[in-house]
């Protein structure tokens, strides 16, 4: 566990209604508190593994607690999974060495009644991303909803999900190269979703079927169960093709009258000329604005954005969205881009 994990999960302790924030020490979240306390609650944000593409688990899960250690002036008491499983509101977390909270874990008992200073150390696993349900989440949601992913992978979509923002779009869960994206924009993704060009492949590493059109993209299906029956696989393939046809039509319609700023993040750093080529391809369709985010930035440059003219913005990031802290960086990139966009003429005005 790191400081970024604690921030992403908004992990805290409520002690008789007072919020305590932990420090991270030796990979555990450590709370300093003054006992006695009548009501202690370990609180975090939650998320559903199915929404993160991890598996089909639809439970809202908080953190997976491996152990809780209470240290008081009289000694140390460690609660492992065997003890914790008797607390209400915990779910088993395979392989049985931890228990998931559902976002709030009441900690009650005589251990917290003895007066004096104490520390509570929580050893836990985290999900890779959490939904932000803080009071600021509505504003964050509105900000992130103003952007739409264009590739090269799902990195930005994972960051959007952190802010409960789940736009319906072709490339939200798509994977494609810049060259494939340019080809698609140039021909309007003609024929995308044609079963003659779509193949369903089992990705053993991710344990998921992917739907692939070699001309344009590969996309998730969220089908995580291997299927022996070819008829079942064909149903998945044909339904996925119908989805691609519908969402390709939506993308092209949206690009003609864009309401969002499009986001492109290559897997490897790209030169400005590549981003200008993508921007030009978008501008041939409509007055789109584009944020291109180069990966691999030095820490000091991560989260910075510059305007490159005519609705093109160039940002920097230093980590993927599977790394903790990426949500904060993407939020900053979107906030800075939105501010820059407000202060520069919209391309539509120039076209008029």
């Amino acid at each position, binding site marked *: 566990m790191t400081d970024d994990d604690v921030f992403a999960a908004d992990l805290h302790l409520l002690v008789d209604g007072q919020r305590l924030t932990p420090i991270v020490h030796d990979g555990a979240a450590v709370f300093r508190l003054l006992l006695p306390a009548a009501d202690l609650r370990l609180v975090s944000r939650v998320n559903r593994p199915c929404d993160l593409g991890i598996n089909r688990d639809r439970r809202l899960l908080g953190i997976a607690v491996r152990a809780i250690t209470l240290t008081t002036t009289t000694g140390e008491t460690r609660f492992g999974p065997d003890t914790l499983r008797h607390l209400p509101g915990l779910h088993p977390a395979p392989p049985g060495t931890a228990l998931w909270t559902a976002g709030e874990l009441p900690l009650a008992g005589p251990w917290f009644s003895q007066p004096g200073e104490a520390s509570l150390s929580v050893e836990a696993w985290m999900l890779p991303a959490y939904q932000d349900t803080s009071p600021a989440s509505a504003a964050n949601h509105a900000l992130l909803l103003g952007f739409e992913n264009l590739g090269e992978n799902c990195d930005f979509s994972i960051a959007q999900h952190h802010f409960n923002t789940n736009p319906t779009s072709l490339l939200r869960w798509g994977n494609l190269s810049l060259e494939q994206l340019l080809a698609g924009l140039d021909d309007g993704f003609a024929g995308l979703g044609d079963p003659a060009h779509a193949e369903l492949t089992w990705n053993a590493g991710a344990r998921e079927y992917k739907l692939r059109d070699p001309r344009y993209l590969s996309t998730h299906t969220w089908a995580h169960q291997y299927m022996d029956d070819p008829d079942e696989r064909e149903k998945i393939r044909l339904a996925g093709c119908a989805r691609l*046809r*519908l969402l390709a039509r939506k993308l092209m319609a949206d690009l003609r009258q864009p309401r969002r700023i499009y986001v492109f993040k290559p897997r490897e750093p790209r030169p400005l000329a590549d981003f200008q080529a993508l921007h030009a391809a978008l501008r041939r369709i409509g007055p789109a604005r584009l944020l291109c985010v180069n990966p691999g930035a030095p820490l000091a440059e991560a989260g910075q954005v510059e305007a490159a003219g005519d609705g093109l913005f160039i940002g920097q990031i230093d980590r993927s969205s599977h790394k903790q802290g990426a949500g904060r960086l993407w939020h900053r990139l979107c906030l800075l881009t939105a501010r820059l966009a407000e202060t520069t003429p919209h391309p539509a005005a120039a076209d008029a």
Partner: protein
Amino acid sequence: MPDPASIRAALHGYIRAICAAPNLALPPDTRLDDLADMDSLKWIETIAVLEERLNLQIDTQALEHLTTLEDIVILLAKARPAG
């Protein structure tokens, strides 16, 4: 043009087939998040398949504002004939 009742019947039939639950109760106010065997991709696929089967063309921007089963029925009922 299909009427809302026949759209509703087609929608319910498709969902029950996907969920392999022939008797699944599907009240109109069922939230799309509430069906355990469905996810956001399956909902888009459901709409895409029904749009083509019913020979309709929906307003794609309306895909962003779907919350309940009945929202899907209304979306398809307002669609124009394809082609």
